[in-house]
């Protein structure tokens, strides 16, 4: 089933990079000059090198490391753009192709979403990668509509302290054992199958022991020094295991991530890394592949040679408003009961509502804006308070781990909902 071309994509997450690359070559056809514009635009759009957007424009151009990073990203985007024939190489210069110019026009006149859609079509023509991803999701967990859960448990989550692992010779193995049991029970819950993963666990233990991270003569010191690395490797090992062995993906974790985050931007797949009440990451399709759809809440995105079509879920406000407000209200109370606070994180609420309704984040933002307007006009039985308290920039981290919730273009962070008395 897997198409070899699927690993032909380059290593960057944001589709917006294509847009800024074209704009950079519009500025100059010489790559060495174009990169300057690329950096300016990248900072302006807060694009990070990872799958997260950047919090501040804090790029320090004096560091060799940063320049290397930036050049790497630039080269990757350029290389994929050459593949997609958006640009052409002529000697030392790079020219925007007629196709590239057409897309640049779309970006400028119709906006980035339409531009991304065109990029999607080009990528899909070449790779069928998005189709592979969506089909694999549905096949990976057919009973739960393609929901892929990747549970992650740090030692602390399982009640094991760092000291217990560092100063106890059996501490790490104990963690592995407890983790194995927990994962087995999760597999039973999420997939409804009994699976013994003892062998996989043994292989993990062997890997970690021979990784050079643990020095048996200086056991505690080495574990202490490499603690975070060991925990991260354990986490990645199991995510990889779930991906390949359980969900049967023929794709490495890093490519999987790339496809998932590119799909998320297009609104065909959702992924949540902090879903309320779940430890780990979940991925699920918000689009379907079928020959013909009947429901008007779906829009065709792509038509394949074999007649199959990709439809994404785009529910209309008029026919879905009741359901939305109902789910919004119930989910608010659900999260409120967990956090025990009147105001709750709007991001948590968005994740939950998107998951229940299988809609994209942008659709949620738009629906919430509409519901909020009705609430201001006193047309709803509930009262919604949206507050800006704690802006995303005030977070100390460098990256924005979750896209801001924008209501009428303004970021909102916390929400409270109550029934009118």
């Amino acid at each position: 089933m897997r198409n070899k071309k699927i690993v032909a994509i380059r290593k960057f997450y944001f589709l917006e990079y294509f847009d800024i690359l074209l704009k950079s070559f519009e500025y100059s056809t010489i790559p060495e000059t174009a990169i300057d514009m690329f950096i300016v635009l990248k900072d302006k759009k807060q694009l990070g090198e990872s799958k997260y957007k950047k919090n501040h424009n804090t790029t320090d151009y004096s560091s060799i490391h940063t320049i290397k990073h930036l050049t790497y990203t630039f080269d990757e985007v350029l290389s994929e753009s050459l593949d997609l024939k958006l640009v052409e190489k002529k000697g030392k210069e790079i020219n925007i192709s007629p196709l590239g110019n057409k897309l640049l026009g779309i970006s400028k006149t119709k906006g980035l979403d339409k531009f991304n859609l065109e990029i999607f079509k080009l990528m899909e023509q070449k790779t069928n990668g998005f189709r592979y991803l969506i089909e694999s999701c549905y096949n990976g967990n057919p009973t739960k509509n393609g929901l892929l859960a990747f549970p992650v448990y740090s030692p602390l989550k399982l009640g094991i302290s760092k000291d217990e692992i560092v100063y106890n010779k059996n501490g790490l193995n104990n963690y592995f054992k407890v983790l194995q049991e927990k994962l087995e029970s999760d597999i039973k819950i999420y997939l409804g199958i009994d699976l013994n993963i003892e062998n996989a666990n043994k292989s993990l233990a062997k890997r970690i022991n021979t990784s050079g991270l643990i020095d048996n003569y200086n056991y505690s010191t080495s574990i202490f020094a490499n603690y975070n690395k060991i925990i991260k490797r354990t986490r990645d090992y199991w995510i990889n295991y779930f991906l390949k062995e359980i969900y049967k993906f023929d794709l490495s974790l890093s490519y999987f991530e790339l496809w998932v985050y590119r799909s998320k931007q297009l609104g065909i797949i959702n992924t949540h890394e902090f879903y309320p009440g779940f430890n780990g990451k979940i991925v699920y399709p918000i689009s379907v592949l079928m020959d013909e759809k009947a429901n008007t809440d779906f829009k065709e995105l792509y038509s394949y040679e074999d007649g199959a079509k990709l439809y994404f879920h785009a529910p209309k406000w008029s026919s879905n408003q009741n359901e939305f407000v109902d789910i919004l209200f119930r989910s608010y109370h659900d999260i409120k009961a967990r956090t025990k606070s009147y105001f709750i994180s709007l991001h948590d609420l968005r994740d939950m509502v998107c998951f229940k309704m299988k809609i994209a984040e942008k659709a949620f933002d738009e629906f919430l804006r509409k519901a909020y307007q009705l609430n201001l006009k006193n047309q709803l039985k509930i009262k919604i308070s949206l507050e800006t308290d704690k802006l995303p920039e005030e977070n100390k981290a460098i990256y924005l781990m979750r896209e801001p919730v924008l209501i009428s273009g303004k970021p909102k962070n916390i929400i409270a909902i109550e029934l009118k008395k």
Partner: protein
Amino acid sequence: MNNPLNKLTQKPTESVNITEVGRFEIYNLKENPFPRSPFVNKSSTEDKLNGNIFEIAVREKEFEKIKNCFLKVPQANVDHQRLGFINDTSYIGRGNGKSAFLINLLKRINDNYCLDLSDNKNKCFAIFTVPEGGGNIKSFDKFVDLIFDSIIESNIINIAFAMLRLDILIRKYPKLSFDDTSFIELVENLNSLEWLTEKGIDIYDLNDEIKKNPYFKELNNELPISNSPGFFHSISNQKTFVEHYKKLKKDQEKNDFVFTGLVMLFLAAGFNGAYILVDDFERIPEFQSATQKKDFATQLRTILFDGMYLNSKIGFFNFLLALHAGVPRLLETAWSESGMENRVPLNPQTESNNVIAFEKLNERHSVLMLKKYLEHYRIKSVAKGDELFPFNEKSVKLISEYSEYNASKILKMAHQLIDKAASEKRKLIDENFVKTFKNDSKDFSIEIGSSDIITTKTVDLKKKAKKK
């Protein structure tokens, strides 16, 4: 037919016990002292709701800073602070007590018009206002309307006229007696044409005397205080001012009226400053576009500092804006673009005289706050050490923890606890009772599994797509 006498004479078999104790009497309380939904409503007549019960010790730090940096600084000094921010420092929602604090500040200032707080240097009044939510106020013009409305609500124009007239009457009619009249009555009488004529006052002369006040020398029709043409006497008061304001159509006319005309009136009456306390100020910038924000900040700057208005020259109106945490960020750009940041920094990281940090409560504060509410509703005064009864310090500590030290939540929980304890006729509200309550309470219970990703009902897209 029944004997009609029976209807009048027959008695029920069960008799009512009139010695029954009141529901909260066992706690030496007249009623549940805590509000059910603790959000301040300034116009409520109930003390537990209108912000009347307020333990100033809880906010001593904030109050002292306002006193030292604002109230005590002579208004005559043109460099006095004209704009301040009361910044909430805790991020989680509402209910930290800002509104209650502002209402009490309002009362403290108006009790003696600031004379006591400023060692007689300033005579200032305060008005309180809160913009409606929902983006009704986006322009500065609408904000001026809001200020004028709250000036009217405070009755301060009538009070100013009463001050002016009383001065003249004492001078010209020494036989008039004002004893045995309450403040409210006095203000009402001095603004009533009927009362003044009844007392034999020459209205034409009285109006003329007012106009002779040195502050009105520069007056060019900004204020409707002259004798009206025609054959009937009339006097100016709040009502005539409202009518005048309604006729003003242009923004400039309104600004002239509020920031020059009214300032003259208040100066003439004997005030040398005023405080405009704006609660929930974020309701304005939240709905403004970047341009609207910048315009707003620029106009604020004009009326406060740079304009040709009398207020800009002397800084009569001082603004105190209460902001939620995070709001400074909303205003940051507009503030620096309009040049306000240099004059009145908004950045919460900068320690400056015009920024008052509104901190979260602590354990001691919760104890003080609950004591104050209990004290207000006691039947008999209690001995020292029993002020918290039926609570104790440990149970209050627990309540505060469960309520995340949020004043509003603490009060709500105290309301529920004492209500439950009264139903169960329980003598004390101790730690255990609070713990059991928390576990039983619906508000706090965790619905286990309800948001589990497996049991959650989600849309089945494949099915939905097939359905017409």
